[in-house]
């Protein structure tokens, strides 16, 4: 690539995607359903921010990958999670990360959290309306200007909706969503929110064959992330292991019966 210089009329501005389109860097999506799919991520708002938990499995006709990272830091205060086509999703994360950083370097200021959420809408729309490789992301972050955690979810056509309570994406949604609907309370503590989000993923993995649960054999556990005034923080696998072991032990004691008490 040569030095990308533009005159004032054709300048793509600080949007990396606009620039990448002009420079021919973005590849044209094609259709195929023979690809791995990523599933089930939950985000839950609590008193001091947002927690996110995601399973680690990519599934096609069989288990394609057992340790996929479906949540990534889009920047210091923002997390981006993906469901749907794994290939397009991972590409989507890369493009979003780069776009936010590109904007920051070009303009010497960060995009607002809402600005980031809105920026993704046309990208989702373009991908989902032109291919069968549908991607549904979930954006959560700590809003520095408004000093609170916020969650933005999207529909298949790129519509962006802010959620005040929690949001779920992926094929395990019915089970994770039910769990969160019953267990959610406003202004929970961080630990309660993490425990509830983990339980939602556990339920999804229990009922949805495309969602991976805690893997005690290979020591692979769902990703657990917090977004607070301290920014994006990923909890270590030992913490995740302990969280899921507790749920597992409880479930073993009741002979697999989830009913009774939720926790």
């Amino acid at each position, binding site marked *: *690539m*040569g*030095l*990308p*210089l*533009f005159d004032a009329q054709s*300048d793509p501005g600080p949007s*990396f995607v606009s*620039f*990448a389109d002009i*420079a021919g*860097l973005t590849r044209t999506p094609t259709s195929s359903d023979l690809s791995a799919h990523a599933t089930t991520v939950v985000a839950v708002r609590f008193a001091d921010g947002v927690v996110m938990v995601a399973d680690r499995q990519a599934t096609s006709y069989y288990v394609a990958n057992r340790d996929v990272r479906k949540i990534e830091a889009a920047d210091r205060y923002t997390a981006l999670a993906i469901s749907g086509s794994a290939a397009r999703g991972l590409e989507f994360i*890369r*493009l979003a990360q*780069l776009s936010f*950083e*590109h904007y920051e*370097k*070009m303009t*010497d200021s960060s995009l607002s959290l809402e600005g980031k959420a809105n920026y993704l809408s046309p990208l989702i729309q373009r991908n989902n309306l032109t291919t069968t490789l549908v991607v549904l992301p979930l954006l959560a972050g700590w809003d520095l200007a408004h000093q609170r955690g916020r969650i933005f979810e999207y529909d298949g056509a790129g519509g962006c909706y802010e959620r005040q309570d929690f949001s779920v994406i992926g094929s395990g949604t019915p089970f994770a969503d039910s769990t969160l609907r019953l267990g959610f309370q406003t202004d929970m503590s961080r630990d309660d929110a993490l425990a509830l989000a983990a339980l939602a993923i556990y339920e999804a993995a229990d009922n949805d064959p495309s969602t991976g649960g805690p893997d005690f054999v290979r020591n692979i556990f769902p990703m657990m992330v917090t977004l607070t005034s301290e920014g994006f923080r990923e909890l270590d696998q030992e913490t995740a292991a302990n969280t899921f072991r507790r749920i597992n032990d409880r479930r073993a004691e009741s002979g697999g019966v989830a009913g009774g008490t939720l926790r």
Partner: protein
Amino acid sequence: MSNYFYVAPEQLIKDRAEFAQKGIARGRSIVAAIYDVGVVMVAENPSASLYKISEIYDRIAFAGVGKYNEFDRLREAGIRWADGTGYTYSREDVDARALANFYAQHLGDMFTEGQKPLEVEILVSQLGNKFRPTKLYRIAYEGTISDEEDFAVLGGDAETIKGRFADLEVGHLSLSQTLKNAVSALAGPGRQLPVGDLEVGVLEDRGERRTFARLDDEQIARLLS
């Protein structure tokens, strides 16, 4: 039909060079230097929002003197080139030397073929790691690229400031000492530069991917005290 008078190529080049030099000499200078663990760039810049020093990539920074709109367009092109290259290949493949060469080609083209030469002088600096060396590439208005050792001075009064800085800076010192030397070289004898008139950017490893940082007035004052 218009008539053209013959102008000898030597004269044309000389005129163009003089034109560019005059434009550059109107602005204030920049000192960039390698210190013990990084690269520091110091500009005399009374504006707190129109920057002369910027981040290009994880380990690459940009500095420019002369006409703001001209070097700012080069800065933007550099960020686009770096982000585009990193996106197409890998972040490791973004190299300051390649970018410096593109800048040199463009400035050279504008000098010989453009309506007028660009009235800018720019610097591409790279913080080294296991795979690449720490580098300062200075690119002049006519496309001359020079690989500067230890430090570089951009701007109209470059030679004088260079002399003053070379007398003070012996080897790679600490950030604080290098900054003091750079500020005193920029100020010259009998002149004090207020902290508010300084723009300082550094490339330094802090355990994160991105190494560029802009120092605020408070940080600059602390380093200068």
